[in-house]
């Protein structure tokens, strides 16, 4: 039996406790220093845990020394560690970037509260990845959601308030659906531990209660995931929130929700032949395809680049869900690897947009004319991200799409492969629109002078951009990791 690893609990407790510390110190710079130190410590511990998981299969911590399934158990397997590293990496990269960006977008007296909320959100997302208890997962889900509602409402535009309100209503319905599902499962199995649930589930899988539970869980998490057509909260929430929040949420929150969906389908219902008894596959696939096409089409017509990238996020979620819906090892691996690659790509894109907002205040295409000549270094990073969204070779996006196309061909669904490639053409169009405006048009005369961009914002943007190129050319490690995670999920390890 594995011994408890205290790092697993420290990973959660430290950011959780540092949030109230930020409230107590009431100073913007000091709060930032705390948030910075914590996020880098979290990153270091996550890396350590990832390698430990790779060495021994899984890492556990029994809270209060109580054995599962009676006590709450934190349990990290390869998929969990992979999601953990996505969240921790984005957290660590976004913090140095946050300082200047937040100073220019959030009122000074609220900055320490901003970092408090950011740390709470980080705690919630990390907690979802490590917990092995279905109800504990709900608590972390709500910690991260409640703090993200607050973060979004801190945007300068008053529409941030209504965006946060709509997200709150939709998010709460989603979370409540999730606890209804957990309650129904508890009625049938008497357990909340995810591993325990998966062993009991086959005995009760035919009951209508369990089917209802599965439906509630799926719809609830799809709301949080912003799966088409439950995505309506996302575009405004991403468009009007402060730049740092957009970067952080776009790169982590939806990925973590996808992780929960994977846990439900392939761990809790892992022993049940869910996909052959229930028409999940056609439902998920049609949602995913609709997201890929309709959201990409909407992205093309946007004038606000932040909203354009938000619609592009919905489309990319479609690719990930498509991989999951294939329910084969390589399909899952495609979905999982795209979680990581998309976090890098969208992180870069939103960081570049945040930097443009910082120095010029512009968010519409019209205001961006000739921006490529005024901010060459920054726009180059944005274009790298754009190429990644299209899936051009040598970028991380290519690896994901390659993996997904291979998976559809392996599953004998070549029309899907064609659709994946076809929908990428839409990405070409919206990325081209930005490219054309930024490089091929002359800056209008009388533009406001640009504020010089601090290195603390340029370096993190380029760090993510280079990472997406690195993982596009040296993909062995991430592909192996995604395959191992997929194999573990499918029960082959």
């Amino acid at each position, binding site marked *: 039996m594995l011994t408890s690893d205290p790092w697993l609990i420290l990973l959660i407790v430290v950011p959780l406790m540092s949030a109230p510390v930020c409230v107590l110190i009431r100073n913007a710079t000091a709060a930032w220093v705390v948030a910075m130190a914590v996020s880098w410590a979290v990153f270091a511990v996550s890396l350590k845990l990832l390698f430990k998981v790779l060495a021994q299969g899984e890492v556990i911590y029994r809270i209060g020394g109580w054995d599962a399934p009676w006590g709450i158990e934190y349990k990290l397997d390869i998929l969990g560690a992979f999601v953990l590293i996505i969240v921790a990496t984005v957290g660590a990269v976004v913090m140095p970037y946050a300082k200047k960006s937040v100073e220019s977008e959030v009122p000074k007296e609220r900055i320490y509260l901003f970092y408090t909320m950011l740390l709470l959100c980080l705690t919630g997302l990390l907690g979802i990845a490590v917990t092995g208890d279905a*109800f504990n997962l*709900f*608590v972390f889900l*709500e910690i991260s959601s*409640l703090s993200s*509602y*607050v973060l979004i*409402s801190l945007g300068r535009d*008053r*529409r941030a*308030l*209504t965006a*946060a*309100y709509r997200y*709150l*209503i939709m998010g*709460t*319905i989603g*979370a*409540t659906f999730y*606890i*209804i599902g957990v*309650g129904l499962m*508890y*009625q049938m199995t008497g357990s*909340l531990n995810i591993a325990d649930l998966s062993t009991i589930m086959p005995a009760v899988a035919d009951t209508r209660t369990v089917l209802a539970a599965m439906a509630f869980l799926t719809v609830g998490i799809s709301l949080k995931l912003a799966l088409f057509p439950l995505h309506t909260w996302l575009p405004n929430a991403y468009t009007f929130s402060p730049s740092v929040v957009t970067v952080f949420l776009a790169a982590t929150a939806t990925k973590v929700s996808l992780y929960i969906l994977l846990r439900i389908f392939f761990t809790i219902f892992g022993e049940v032949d869910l996909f052959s008894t229930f028409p999940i596959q056609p439902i998920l696939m049609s949602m995913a395809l609709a997201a890929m096409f309709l959201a990409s089409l909407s992205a093309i017509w946007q*004038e606000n680049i932040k909203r354009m990238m938000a619609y592009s996020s919905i489309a990319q979620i479609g690719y990930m869900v498509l991989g999951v819906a294939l329910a084969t090892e390589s399909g899952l691996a495609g979905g999982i690897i795209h979680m990581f690659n998309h976090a890098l790509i969208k992180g870069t894109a939103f960081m570049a947009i945040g930097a443009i907002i910082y120095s010029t205040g512009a968010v*519409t295409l019209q205001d961006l004319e000739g921006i490529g000549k005024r901010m060459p270094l920054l726009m180059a990073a944005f274009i790298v991200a754009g190429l990644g969204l299209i899936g051009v070779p040598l970028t991380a996006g290519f690896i994901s799409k390659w993996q997904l196309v291979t998976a559809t061909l392996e599953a004998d669904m070549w029309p899907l492969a064609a659709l994946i490639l076809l929908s990428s053409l839409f990405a070409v169009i919206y990325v081209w629109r930005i490219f054309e405006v930024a490089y091929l048009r002359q800056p209008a005369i009388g533009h406001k002078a640009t504020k010089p961009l601090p290195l603390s914002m340029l370096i993190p943007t380029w760090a993510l951009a280079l990472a997406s190129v690195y993982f596009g050319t040296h993909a062995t490690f991430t592909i192996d990791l995604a395959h191992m995670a997929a194999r573990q999920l499918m029960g082959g390890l």
Partner: protein
Amino acid sequence: MIDFQDLLNLVNYWVVIILMMVGFYIVIAQGNLIKKIVGLSIFQVSVFVFYISMGKVTGGTAPILDSKIELYSNPLPHVLILTAIVVGVATTALAMALVVRIHSSYGTIEEDEIQAIEHEEEDVAC
């Protein structure tokens, strides 16, 4: 034929479903932001009733460690729902705070009026 006794025994669950649908309907159909929060709270309360009902054992008492007590209700769902109640309170408080700020910057809490204002702003921006 529906057994009347069965119907009575399941009365808690009927109440849960009715409350759930009432709450859900209010969230969707009402245009007033405060009334939406009321609906959301009713929706959440239905889940609390659901959890509390499922832990109850007929004739059972509170689970106190005593040799005289033999039949007791399952305390776990009751404890779980304490957590969910706290989350629900936090959600309601946050939603109320947002509505206060929406009211002070838009001057209204009717969804259609807010949407009209937002559309106007977008037209001006374009």
